[in-house]
């Protein structure tokens, strides 16, 4: 019964295992990315959030600056209340616009922030003044069909 031999081998085993886990966390995953819990929270209200989900990215100029923290409904105004958790590294002006965009044609939806020129910055808990709701495919199609139908009667005259 050679205890030191077992201890050594198991030690190497655990070391390799931990290395593999670290490799996965850093090289394969995005641990170096955003850690929820830090940063500050902004509120944005939309008429329609489309397919936006919790933990969806918040991007500005295409760079991920935060995550969607929570989604709720204001039962009086029937607006969607979205809380965005923004990394402390970034500041946005008070007249920033929040829009719900789609990555690619049919990809996942995210919140895009477009900063304005206001010298005053948004602080923790502030609400974004201007928002742009998601484009719902059915509404687009019905709009398109409706406008097409509106054109045709004029032509037959």
């Amino acid at each position, binding site marked *: *019964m050679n*205890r030191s031999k*077992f*201890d050594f*081998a*198991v030690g*190497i*085993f*655990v070391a*390799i*295992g*931990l*290395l*593999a*886990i670290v*490799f*996965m*966390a850093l*090289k*394969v*995953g*995005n*641990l170096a*990315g955003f850690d929820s819990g830090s940063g500050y929270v902004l509120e944005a209200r939309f008429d329609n959030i489309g397919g936006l989900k919790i933990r969806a990215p918040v991007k500005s100029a295409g760079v991920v600056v935060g995550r969607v923290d929570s989604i709720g409904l204001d039962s009086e105004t029937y607006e969607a209340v979205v809380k965005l958790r923004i990394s402390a590294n970034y500041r946005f002006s008070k007249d920033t616009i929040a829009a719900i965009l789609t990555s690619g044609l049919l990809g996942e939806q995210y919140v895009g922030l477009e900063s304005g020129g206001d010298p005053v910055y948004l602080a923790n808990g502030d609400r974004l003044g201007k928002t742009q709701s998601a484009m719902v495919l059915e509404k687009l199609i019905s709009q398109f069909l409706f406008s097409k139908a509106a054109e045709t009667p004029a032509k037959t005259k």
Partner: protein
Amino acid sequence: MISYLTQFIEMLGRFVTSRIDRLGLAARFAGLLLLALGVSIRRTTLIIREVYFSGVRSLSIITVSGLFVGMVLAVQGYEVLQRYGSAESLGVIVALSLVRELGPVVTALLFAGRASSAVTAEIALMRATEQLAAMDMMAVDPLSRVVAPRFLAAVFSMPFLAAIFSAAGVIGAWIIGVHLIGIDDGAFWSQMQANVDVRIDVLNGLLKSIVFGTAVGLISVFEGYFAAPTAEGIASATTRTVVISSLSVLLLDLVLTVMMFRGLS
């Protein structure tokens, strides 16, 4: 004709009741094992010894299998992706498949076949040669000294082995994808990193492997402990360990996958 039917129903009933009996026995055994864990967790020397025999000795098969599985994933994945012009997403496909599913599941299946069957045979042989009874007679609880360390070794080794499998797989896919097929190295890693979340994917994968380790560990020591003390008894106990462990891993995988990954879509 009727007699055949009644015979068949009788047989079915007997089969079901025997399965339920055995399940009850397993549950009671698990309870006793749980109680014995408190004592045996302090016997680190014993646990380390078992981690060596179950975990360390499985390293070669796990690493090589992971490497090959990753390579195959790369070949197959590229074949499909390049039809839609998405060959750069190869890293994502391979990483997610490995980390979420193949790593934990295949590792558990290989472990069941290699390490757990050996544990079952070992315990069954100790039962057959009255070593467990002798220990019991010397006022040493065989559950604490023989069974629990082997169970704990399985639970402990599994997540490390699963991580090593997945890591080897990613490296294998990288070798094939980037160096043989010619996918862009930067795209391979950056796409992967953008789409593999540590909390959702890596951590859940490790959690799965811990659950699998618990199941496989429990099954292997149970089958060994209650094996019939004959050559056939040991042989059937060993095969039962592999079969039941494999099925349990696949079933648990389904349950866990639904629990962990369904809420994302």
